[in-house]
């Protein structure tokens, strides 16, 4: 068991560690042995307008996607606590966004945006497409982690002079706040690194970073600036996941709350 886990971790993290180490290399690229420590590639990438532009776009898009994901998954998770007509079909339809093949989602969104609605590609088109994918994840996390007593606390609030808005701000929101933060962290990470769907709906100038990387690396070999960039993104994403995971574990482990 330990060997198995070790093997997986090795396969996943060695390439990343390798990239991180070489981002500090003085000589370009993979000239072994490792020459010396240098921050030149970091300054190179900071000064490359194309890369920075893409990074900016990626971050803004991820932020928008996160906000949308948290808002939609939270309101849906709260609403789904009660039975209503078409409750189950509604739930399955939202889950579809998670299972739906990414490339197809991207392509169909491209067609709908450009052909049907005549919307030019931008961070908004990327955001709307990615949200379809991230919302079901957020929804499932919330549904699994919601305190079953939440409804009871809300009833207690209502029967003690709180109207619906006050119930939400005084009782519901404080009790789900941590789970919402977790959803936000996961959504941000997912949106930042996504490439399959984004490829189709990214703007042509300053496309999303993963998209840029993919298209660039198809034509020319990577320069170490990309390593520097990759390092930054990896560190940010890993931190987000670790923080999110740590919060979940502290609040009661990864098991589903009874």
């Amino acid at each position: 068991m330990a060997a198995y886990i070790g093997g997986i971790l090795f396969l996943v993290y060695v390439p990343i560690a390798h990239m991180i180490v070489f981002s500090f290399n003085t000589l370009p690229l993979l000239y072994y042995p490792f020459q010396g420590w240098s921050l030149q590639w970091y300054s190179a990438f900071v000064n490359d307008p194309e890369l920075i532009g893409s990074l900016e776009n990626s971050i803004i898009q991820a932020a928008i996607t996160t906000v949308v994901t948290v808002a939609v998954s939270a309101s849906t998770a709260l609403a789904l606590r009660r039975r209503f007509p078409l409750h189950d079909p509604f739930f399955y339809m939202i889950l579809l966004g998670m299972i739906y093949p990414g490339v197809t989602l991207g392509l169909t969104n491209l067609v709908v945006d450009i052909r049907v609605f005549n919307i030019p590609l931008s961070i908004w088109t990327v955001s709307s497409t990615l949200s379809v994918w991230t919302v079901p994840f957020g929804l499932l996390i919330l549904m699994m982690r919601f305190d079953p007593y939440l409804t009871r606390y809300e009833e207690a609030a209502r029967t003690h002079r709180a109207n619906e808005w006050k119930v939400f701000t005084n009782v519901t929101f404080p009790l789900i706040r941590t789970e919402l933060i977790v959803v936000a962290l996961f959504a941000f990470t997912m949106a930042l690194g996504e490439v399959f769907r984004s490829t189709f709906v990214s703007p042509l100038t300053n496309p999303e970073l993963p998209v840029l990387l993919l298209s660039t690396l198809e034509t020319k070999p990577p320069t170490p600036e990309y390593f520097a960039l990759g390092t930054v993104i990896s560190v940010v994403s890993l931190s987000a996941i670790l923080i999110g995971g740590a919060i979940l574990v502290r609040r009661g482990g990864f098991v589903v709350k009874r």
Partner: protein
Amino acid sequence: MDVPSKLVVQGLTKRFGRVVAVNEVSFEIREGEFFVIIGPSGCGKTTSLRCVAGLETPDSGSIRVSGSDIRSMPVYKRDVCIVFQDLALFPHMNVFDNVSFGLRMMGSPKDRIEKEVDEVLRLVQLEGLGGRRITELSGGQRQRVALARSLVLKPSILLFDEPIGGAEPELRDRMLAEIKELHRRLGFTALYVTHDQEQAMRLADRIMVMNQGSIEQIGTPEEVYLNPSTLFVARFLGGLNMLDGEVASLKDDLLMVKTGAGDLAVNDRRKIGAKVKRVIYCIRPEKVSIGEQARKLDNTVEGKLVDQTYKGSSIEHVVHLKNGVAFRSVSEGRDLVDLGSYIDRDVVIGWKSNDSLVFPA
């Protein structure tokens, strides 16, 4: 002369899908009365309470508090509060914030809130514990916080949804006594829902027995216990010995019933005997005397004593009658009868016709 009605419920009906949870229920609660609804799970008592609170929307019927119809009022505007079974204290707030919740939601000024909360905390003997987190409190303390949270708002009607749950008997006992004492001191109007007979009998000014969505009987604890209007009420509110029987004769309220254990007499105040032939003859265990002293009573039956159980303040005897039915006799206090040496021997049991009950079969 008439004490004004605080709550008038008429024709209350609530369906969940095809199940009729509450079926044309009507009742009234007077000002200052402690009104208990009792019944088995699923009888509609909790649903009725939730309709009064506004947490459920009735399909039909009217609900009037102090004369005004509250059916169209949203929950937070109704002048009611609920003390829940699982207490539902806000976990992310301390004691003070929990108790002051309602006042804060209403926008009361800070100094008034402090004064009132301090007062009510003193009332429930939780003085000085305002800063504690809910998780730091004992079960009994938590129940008192829940009480305080509702009491501080001085609602027209205080609703209780089986608040004394699975705590140990001693704690339950104390809570019952505290609630009763608070009611005596403050005089609030209460609607209390429970399935527990002891709680109902101890707390209620009047009891309403419900079964499968309908009312079986409304009356004082004494009335529903001594004079149950249906077999269900008789069985639900206490032990009951039962025999199938046929009406033999009825004269001046004295009904003779032929049973498998002999001809027995009952005081038929409701004159069931004139309308039906097949009946169920009943007598409560504590009204059944056992031993030689029983021979002097109107109804005597012989049987074999099969068991004697010592219950502390009472002794219960199980007697098998000649038709196979097992009768229970309970003797308490000064009338404790110890027949330990008579087990497996024949004994006599007896009771007064005035104490027996009869219902249509």
